């Protein structure tokens, strides 16, 4: 048997060739390791959709980061997830605007430098110092996007004129065809608006709270079901539900783009705005990477991505973002009324005082509202 040697290798490598190859490998190692550098994981706590590829894949590829999303449904759920995790678990937190204050009070988020973000370019003055986002002159959260909640309906059974009031939910033909997004806050807020509480919709004394409960109970016979995100989608899509309380374009927008005859409008009694904001998790070791990502999302390109988010659309909050959306996707900008001069332009609606920012009950606890919600569901 002939044993192979390095000089006459059966692998076809001479000693000289082997040394050359080995040397080359050693010399190129730093470059290889840089190219294959460990990707930085960024733990994100957010509503569903924000960590999906349509939102982050491009950024991940360009910045060698990887988002690890943990999705929640509802501010309570978000607060609980943070409360039950060690500090620093979440690097990036997307929160509904009304819960930012609680995040800050509990010490879950870092202070942010206003100079890092395009506050001067915000579409509305309110967005610059949004309630709860600032405390003692310090900024803790950056508004990313928003959306409006009003009357969501099927155009085949509710006319555009009828949809100009929450009254349409009581239309006799809709008995058993009105669905609820299963969360007390938006629905009871809408009932409060319907009762004429206007800007004081969350600040209800006992008499007004009783009246809101009575109004809501009056709607019960119309109700065909209580749904989560998927159920709401299905109910509207297959026509089992002809109107939906507690939602807005964030759901009908997706269906509308898919060709379903549904729409959302802000009725004359007013609508509710949900706001989503980014914060940096307290104790995060990746604060600079997170800041960079938030800056990207606030850039025109990021704002367009946010407006087009596959899971649910939202409107741009910066002027440059809106301009970029109009340029990149005029159809979506038109559909979502993000055009100056449109009667349902989100900014116009705010200026007209028809939009009220979603908040938590001021004179009752969330528990009281939830208790009533359970009672309502069982009625």
């Amino acid at each position, binding site marked *: 048997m002939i044993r192979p040697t390095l000089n006459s290798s059966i692998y076809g490598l001479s000693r000289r060739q082997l040394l050359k190859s080995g040397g080359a490998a050693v010399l190129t190692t730093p470059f290889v390791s840089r190219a294959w550098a460990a990707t930085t994981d960024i733990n994100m706590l957010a509503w569903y959709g924000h960590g999906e590829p349509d939102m982050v894949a491009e950024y991940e590829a360009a910045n060698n980061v990887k988002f690890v999303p943990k999705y929640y*449904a*509802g501010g*309570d*759920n978000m*607060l*609980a997830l943070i*409360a*039950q995790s060690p500090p620093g678990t979440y690097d990036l937190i997307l929160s509904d605007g009304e819960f930012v204050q609680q995040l800050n009070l*509990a010490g879950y988020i870092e202070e942010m430098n206003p100079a890092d973000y395009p506050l001067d370019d915000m579409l509305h003055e309110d967005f610059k110092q949004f309630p709860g986002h600032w405390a003692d002159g310090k900024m803790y959260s950056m508004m990313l996007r928003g959306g409006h909640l009003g009357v969501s309906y099927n155009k085949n059974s509710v006319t555009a004129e009828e949809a100009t009031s929450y009254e349409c939910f009581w239309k006799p033909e809709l008995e*058993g065809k009105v*669905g609820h997004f*299963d969360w*007390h806050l938006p629905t009871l807020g809408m009932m409060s608006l319907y009762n004429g509480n206007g800007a004081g919709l969350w600040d209800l004394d006992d008499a007004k709270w009783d009246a809101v409960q009575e109004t809501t109970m009056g709607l019960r016979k119309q*109700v*065909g*079901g*209580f*749904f*989560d995100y998927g*159920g709401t989608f*299905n*109910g509207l899509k*297959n*026509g*089992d539900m002809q109107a939906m309380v507690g939602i807005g374009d964030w759901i009908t927008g997706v269906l509308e783009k898919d060709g379903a005859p549904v729409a959302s409008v802000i009725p004359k009694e007013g609508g509710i705005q949900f706001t989503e904001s980014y914060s940096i998790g307290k104790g995060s070791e990746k604060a600079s990477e997170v800041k960079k990502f938030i800056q990207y999302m606030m850039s025109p390109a990021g704002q367009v991505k946010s407006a087009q988010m596959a899971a649910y659309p939202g409107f741009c909050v910066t002027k440059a973002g809106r301009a970029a959306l109009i340029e990149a996707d005029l159809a979506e900008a038109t559909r979502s009324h993000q055009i100056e001069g449109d009667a349902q332009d989100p900014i116009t609606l705010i200026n007209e005082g028809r939009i009220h920012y979603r908040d938590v009950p001021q004179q009752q606890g*969330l*528990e009281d*509202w*939830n*208790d009533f*919600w*359970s*009672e309502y*569901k*069982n009625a």
Partner: protein
Amino acid sequence: MLSSSGRKFNLYALTWRLPIIFWQFIFFVGPVLFMVAMSFFLVKNYRMTEAFEFVNWSKMLSRGYFWDSYWYTVFIAGVSTICAMCIAFPAAFALAFRASESTRRWAIFLLIIPFFTSYLVRTFSWFVILSESGVINGMLGYIGLGPYTMLNTSFGTLVGYMTLTLPLVVILQTVTMANIDKNLIEAARNLGCSAFRTIWQVIIPLSKTGLIIAAIFCFILSFGDFVAPFYLGGSQEPTLPILILDTTKSGQQWPRAAVVAIMMMATLFAIAFAGIALAYRKKKGAK
């Protein structure tokens, strides 16, 4: 060595029993004890804090909506059990007494197949069939009927429960009836028993234990199911599993959810023990 009861201590037997004892302790007794303890905890700032307060119990048990959900859940699970037992019986009877051995084996295999897929997926597939623009209403439309509302109703919930329980109930009933001594049935017929009387006075009494066990399984599965009442029933009326979700969703009230869960367990224990007692009850004078 004798135990206190005078029976011989058997190390070999104990060795074989230990895994199941260990398993039950780790995965059943331990969590149940923790759940009972948790029902006395308090929630502060969305975080559970250890305490020994009865506030969760008094809060939940004094609420009308809890009892509404409770009785509705008992009712709908009871209806589900009756429906499943009635629908399954003719099928199981045919498989046990009319079908050949190989047909029965194939039928049982086919009944097991649904369990290969996710129950959630099977439930969602009912949307296509039950919705107002779905398959059933589409067919009824051809003969000028409908559309009928089937989703988001108690009927929808029942359809979901049947999806979950019916294959299991058919299997249990079939296996039970297939094990009845056929000579006893033939004897009854030879002595002039009608077919109906044979079923009523011979087959059902002989398969009583298996039938009751099948009914208990059906009730337990329906009583604790979240998917069918939520997705096909539209949460109206909410059952206890939906109430648990609602309770945890708002304010993260896990201790109050624990109260609901304990009430559910107590109910299921009571029904299961009553059922088992009935199944194994001997007639007076019987050995």
